[in-house]
């Protein structure tokens, strides 16, 4: 056998992960397949967050607004305007991207703690807006999208998104696409520039890089990916509510990325999956499940200070992207 180059190894690994996830569609019992479909969509959210936080070093506390912009962009147009899934999904993407452009343009004038606060405030405004327009959004209670509307039309036929297997496969397709984009970016000049900005912004400026423009591009791309996750969530699971715009949905992707490994391609999936099952398992045994979750998190940080994938890369597999 010939030895594989680092990039061949990493491509093989990523293809392997996607194939494994594909096989799980038929191998997993119904309950767990449902969980995993949800995890895949939320992992896309985490991957979007990872672009800004992990690669570029922008600690945002407001990414719920981008997820929710996608969610509402798709959900409201399906519910109120009776749009079909494709244009509704596209509306979600446009809403999230436009919001990221505006918020990024304003928030990136600040750094560090100020950036955290500004993004938090923007997200809070977004959240309160969804409550203010309760007539259309039904606030926390939310909207349930009719099953009949959740079909994806193709030239050859239609896909029924409320069917568990279809739903899983569509979630996986989106996940695989975003994974491929992240992998490509991490090795492209743009991705390397983002990491270098995270490491030493002043040096990058004095190498002739437009730091603001690069950061803005990162936030917009991050917002687009998060909005894609939100829009997919709306049409796959048929529920759209203000809860997704609230502060905990800004904290969760941060947690998922930290646990899985910031600035790694697979970390967001690992972190999301891990946290989902820790909470799921803990709450089936005890009502004090948050205590268990807290203890597990402390354990992870002690033994995997750079997150699971990040620490594996540091200790054993330096080629891991």
């Amino acid at each position: 056998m010939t030895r594989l180059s680092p990039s061949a190894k990493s491509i093989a690994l990523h293809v392997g992960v996607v194939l494994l996830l594909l096989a799980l569609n038929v191998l997993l019992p119904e309950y767990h397949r449902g969980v995993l479909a949800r995890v895949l969509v939320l992992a896309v959210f985490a991957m979007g967050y990872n672009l800004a936080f992990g690669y570029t070093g922008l600690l945002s506390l407001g990414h719920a607004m981008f997820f929710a912009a996608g969610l509402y962009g798709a959900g409201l147009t399906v519910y109120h305007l009776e749009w079909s899934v494709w244009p509704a999904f596209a509306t979600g993407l446009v809403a999230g991207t436009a919001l990221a452009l505006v918020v990024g343009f304003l928030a990136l004038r600040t750094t560090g703690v100020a950036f955290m606060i500004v993004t938090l405030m923007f997200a809070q405004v977004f959240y309160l807006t969804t409550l203010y327009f309760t007539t259309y959004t039904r606030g926390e209670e939310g909207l349930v999208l009719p099953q009949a509307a959740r079909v994806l039309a193709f030239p050859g036929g239609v896909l029924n998104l409320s069917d568990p297997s279809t739903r899983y496969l569509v979630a996986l397709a989106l996940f695989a696409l975003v994974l491929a984009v992240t992998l490509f970016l991490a090795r492209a000049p743009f991705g390397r520039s983002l990491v270098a900005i995270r490491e030493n912004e002043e040096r990058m400026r004095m190498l002739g890089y437009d730091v603001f423009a690069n950061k803005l591009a990162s936030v917009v791309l991050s917002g687009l990916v998060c909005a894609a996750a939100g829009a997919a969530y709306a049409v796959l699971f048929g529920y759209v509510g203000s809860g997704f715009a609230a502060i905990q949905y800004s904290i969760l992707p941060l947690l998922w990325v930290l646990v899985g490994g910031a600035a790694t391609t697979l970390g967001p999936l690992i972190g999301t999956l891990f946290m989902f099952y820790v909470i799921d398992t803990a709450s089936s045994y005890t009502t004090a499940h948050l205590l268990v979750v807290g203890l597990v998190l402390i354990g992870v940080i002690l033994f995997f200070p750079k997150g699971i994938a990040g620490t594996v890369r540091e200790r054993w597999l330096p080629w891991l992207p």
Partner: protein
Amino acid sequence: MAAVSPLLVTRDLCRAFGGLRAVDGVDFSLPEGETHAIIGPNGAGKTTFVSLICGRITPTSGSVVFDGREVSRMPAHRRVRAGIAYTFQITSVFANLTAFDNVALAVQRQLIDARAGGRTAHALAEHGMEALDKVGLAGHADKIAGNLSYGHQRLLEVAMGLALKPRLLILDEPTQGLSDGEIDNFIGLVRQIGEEATVLLIEHNMDVVMALAERITVMEQGRILAQGAPAEIRANEAVQQAYLGG
């Protein structure tokens, strides 16, 4: 000689920090191709002056003209692309990246600007290794920059500056913290750089200054105290009193 317009001109350049006039009405002109040293006591305003030239700091008033273009309001990254490279007084490398990756970031920028068809890994490797080779770090390409010795980190900074292929290279106390042997090599390196680029060198080590500079500017309290060829500066009484210690 015909009046060739200089590469760099500053006119009445000022920068105040609160009440402190760090740079105070400096008129300065640098012909293309010259290796020019700026000396002066600590706090004289040398770093601030070159920071105004490269755009890290904006002037309170006055103008900076580079290659016939007014650049004093131009953001730093665009001045770098116009051909002004700056190496920091306080070493500033990407500590977590390898030496090669540090230089590659400079090469990548340069290739993008040159619209080189070869924005390939090959061109990156070639130009990156070339710059590392010039400063004698080719053997350390795969080492993490933060683990390099202090002297090597300084050289890495110079390699990043070189990889940008600048017209004006500003070196801010590059020999600070280098051993005597390293300083000798460094003098050779700057001579070589000086054949292709204009060099503006801030330096406290007078041996280095005398070995390299074609002309010297002495700064004190934000102003130019004296300017001239090394021999003139050495003979200048005001300079001796203010700086060379009588």
